[in-house]
């Protein structure tokens, strides 16, 4: 029993110190929540009817958009049906809302002209000059002043013999493969027609046509200039596009599939009642008509060209369209996803947005830490005064719990992306009290026995057994509470519940493996044995001449 005690004492201390060492070595650090480091958080909720699978899809799409603007460590999580987007370090609330809140529309735009991809500093759609307040909602936007002039309207007839600029990525840093030119073909059974070379570019009217159109000016009824980007955000192609001929709603589904030759293609189904509309565009493009001189139809999502397949047949069956190109499996699946859910599959409404500046976050963190330290100091003083040596055991036990808790928080923050919010900090501050409570329960039990005339030595084992059973009951009740809070609530409540629950669990562990053996060792040590006052113990009633009707075993 005593050997066990010492072993568990040593092992838990080693564990705590090892945990701290590992945390330092692995450079794990708690991930600070937005309220502590500044940033924007948005809680989006679906409205109207939606499919169960719509939420994960929406999260995926939002993640792509957020990655597009290069936020460090964005957090996009699901809580029930709500989607919580946290963008640390972004101070501009409007930009964040624009980014995640809109249900972007998938649009089919005929390609008017191929342009060389931008070689100048890449300017992504949706990015605005920093520091310029922008409260414009895109939908209230006036069409921009660069209305196409009459030249543009019909000026796409090409002088014969003009050749298109060769289409290739000219990124100086990477040699991107030239973008594949996917083709839109009729169902298997018909030979796909030969890929026609892209039509020569139309003379452009001005430099603004060569520039990427900003997201605010991405008007479905106007020609625009948009780019196609690879996964790293490098522009691989740029297109001058005509007004949108159709939106994603004409599609009923899209799936990646593998053809006989081991090539990945994307099969597309158009809604039966809309196939006629689609065929109007397809016919136009197939014939290289004035509104679709390149015979390519671009699929545009969120102001980016996802793909621009050539149209290889004058008309299609609703369920017999496939987009083929030099796709890898991943590319085909991504394209199918975009086609299926290009518009967010569900309309999302921002229920709650919060933006916190970095300085306010820092203040909150400082206050939390300070409050915690003061609270800890007060509890330490109280315990030491009241329980003397045992109070010291309590505080050491708290230190062990704290080391383990810190290890866990840092690990959760570094590897699980679990942020520590102010609510979490509060939970931790509160847990100081919880951790000390179990010590109090034990010591009071002990004092009761000692007051009844037992020696500390004789009392300690029995006291711990009965005190521990109380502690387990009370802690389990707390754990049930924390668990329910964690499962059934949203937002800050969860963080709070998690840390409180962790602290409670650690309290159980350190009570059993640290407090008990250490108290035992102290009580049984020869030097301290006959000095109950050191332990804050009462003088036994027998000594005070009080009646006692019990022969306490010595």
């Amino acid at each position, binding site marked *: 029993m005593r050997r066990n005690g010492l072993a568990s004492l040593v092992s838990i201390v080693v564990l705590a110190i090892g945990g701290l060492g590992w945390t330092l070595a692995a450079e794990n650090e708690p991930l600070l929540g937005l309220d502590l480091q500044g940033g924007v958080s948005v*809680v989006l*909720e679906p409205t109207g009817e939606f499919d169960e699978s719509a939420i994960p899809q929406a999260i995926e799409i939002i993640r792509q958009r957020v990655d597009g603007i290069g936020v460090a460590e964005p957090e996009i999580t699901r809580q029930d049906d709500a989607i919580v987007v946290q963008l640390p370090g972004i101070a501009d609330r409007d930009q964040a809302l624009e980014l995640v809140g809109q249900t972007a529309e998938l649009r089919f735009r005929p390609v008017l002209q191929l342009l060389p991809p931008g070689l100048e500093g890449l300017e992504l759609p949706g990015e605005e000059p920093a520091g310029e*307040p922008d*409260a414009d909602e895109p939908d209230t936007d006036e069409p921009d002043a660069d209305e196409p002039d009459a030249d543009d309207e019909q000026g796409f007839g090409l002088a014969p013999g003009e050749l298109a600029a060769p289409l290739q990525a000219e990124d100086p840093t990477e040699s991107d493969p030239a973008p594949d030119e996917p083709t839109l073909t009729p169902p298997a059974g018909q030979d796909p027609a030969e890929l026609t070379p892209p039509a020569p570019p139309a003379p452009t009217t001005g430099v603004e046509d060569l520039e990427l159109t900003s997201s605010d000016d991405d008007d479905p009824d106007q020609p625009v200039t948009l780019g196609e980007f690879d996964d790293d955000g490098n522009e691989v192609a740029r297109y001058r596009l005509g007004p949108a001929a159709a939106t994603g709603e004409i599609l009923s589904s899209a799936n990646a599939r593998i053809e006989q030759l081991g090539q990945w293609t994307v099969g597309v189904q158009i809604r039966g009642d809309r196939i006629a509309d689609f065929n109007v565009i397809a016919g136009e493009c197939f014939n290289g008509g004035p509104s679709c001189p390149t015979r390519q139809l671009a699929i545009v999502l969120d102001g980016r060209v996802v793909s621009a397949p050539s149209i290889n047949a004058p008309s299609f069956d609703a369920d017999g369209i496939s987009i083929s190109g030099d796709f890898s499996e991943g590319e085909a699946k991504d394209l199918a996803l975009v086609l299926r859910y290009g518009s967010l599959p569900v309309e999302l409404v921002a*229920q709650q947005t919060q933006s916190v500046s970095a300085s306010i976050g820092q203040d909150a963190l400082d206050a939390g830490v300070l409050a915690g330290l003061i609270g800890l100091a007060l509890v330490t003083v109280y315990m030491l005064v009241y329980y003397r040596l045992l109070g010291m055991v309590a505080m050491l036990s708290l230190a062990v719990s704290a080391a383990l808790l810190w290890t866990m928080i840092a690990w959760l923050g570094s590897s699980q992306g679990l942020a520590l919010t102010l609510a979490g900090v509060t939970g931790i501050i*509160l847990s100081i009290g919880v951790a000390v*409570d179990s010590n109090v329960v034990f010591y009071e039990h002990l004092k009761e026995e000692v007051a009844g005339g037992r020696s500390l030595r004789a009392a300690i084992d029995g006291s711990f057994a009965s005190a521990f059973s109380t502690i387990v009951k009370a802690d389990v009740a707390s754990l*049930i509470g924390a668990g329910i*809070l964690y499962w059934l609530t949203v937002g800050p409540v969860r963080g709070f519940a998690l840390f409180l629950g962790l602290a409670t669990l650690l309290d159980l562990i350190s009570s059993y493996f640290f407090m008990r053996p250490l108290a035992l060792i102290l009580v049984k040590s020869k030097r301290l044995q006959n000095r109950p006052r050191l332990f804050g113990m009462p003088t036994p009633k027998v000594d005070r001449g009080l009646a006692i009707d019990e022969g306490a075993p010595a």
Partner: protein
Amino acid sequence: MSVRSKLASFDNDIDFPRLWRIGAVVSLVLLLLSGGALVGRGLNLGIDFEGGTAWEVQAPDASVADAREVLTPLGLGNAKIQFVGGDNLRVQAEPGDDAGLAEVTVALAELAGADRTDVAISTVGPTWGDEILEKAQRALIVFFVLIAAYIAVRLEWKMAVGALAAVVHDILIVIGFYAVFQLEVTPATVIAILTIMGYSLYDTIVVFDKAQANAERPALAQKMNYTDLMSLSLNQVLMRSINTSITSLLPVLSMLFVGSFLLGAVTLQEFAYALAVGLGIGAYSSIFVATPIVAWLKEREPQQQNLRQRLEAQSARRTGQPVAATVSPSEPRPAGTAPLLSGRVIPPRPRKKGKRR
């Protein structure tokens, strides 16, 4: 001998059943106050529950009047403008369109002499709060069911009833406190209230566990009725309750102090109010609500009724008083009679089986 040293050396012999009657009156008054304030004044709900927009910026040199002057032309003349936690200027507007949001932000930033991004903005849709509340309610119900089951299994169902009654009592009074003082109810408040439940239970379970242990000792259980047994148990664990409450309360008080006086960390303050009140009430209710309810329920058991009559008969024989046929448990003990067994005596603990070291 001072009260404290009496407590510390287990000489306390507090007649809890008599205090319970006072406690019942106190609780009733508090509950009525809470109910009255809730109906009369209602709760001061923050924007998280009402919907709307709140701006917050550190504006040490501005005043509320300045802010109102700046905001009136922007159509926010009747917005709620206040300083929270020192020099944090907080402006709250009703839910409406977001059109003027940016202008307000810029105006406030100018007023405070800060950058536009230093203004913390939070916008909440009108249905968000309902959702938080709905989730909290659901959590509450599941919590009640599970905790009741747990206590019923580990202790007994009557104790589960007592414990939950105490929890409900605590929650009502804390909410009432918010209504009386018109403190703003935020999600932090909801968290705090849910936490209080856990605390309240912790205390209550410590008392019940002791009572259960005492009830299992024939030496005690045969000598006194359940009410006195509870009173004895309370006396035995009183110091425990006081100390656990103090150690829990110290960090909360520190939060309250730091949050309100030093750094203007408003969220901390919001948490701390509810927690401080809740902890106090939780400690109180485990003694004055949970315990008497269980005692009252237990006294209704036929076994207890018999015991009671036997004890009455015994004491009547000793004192030569006529025996009342049956004494209803809710009837007070005749004044002046001490509890049958004082907390001063520690009964022998039953010999444990197994090795003795």
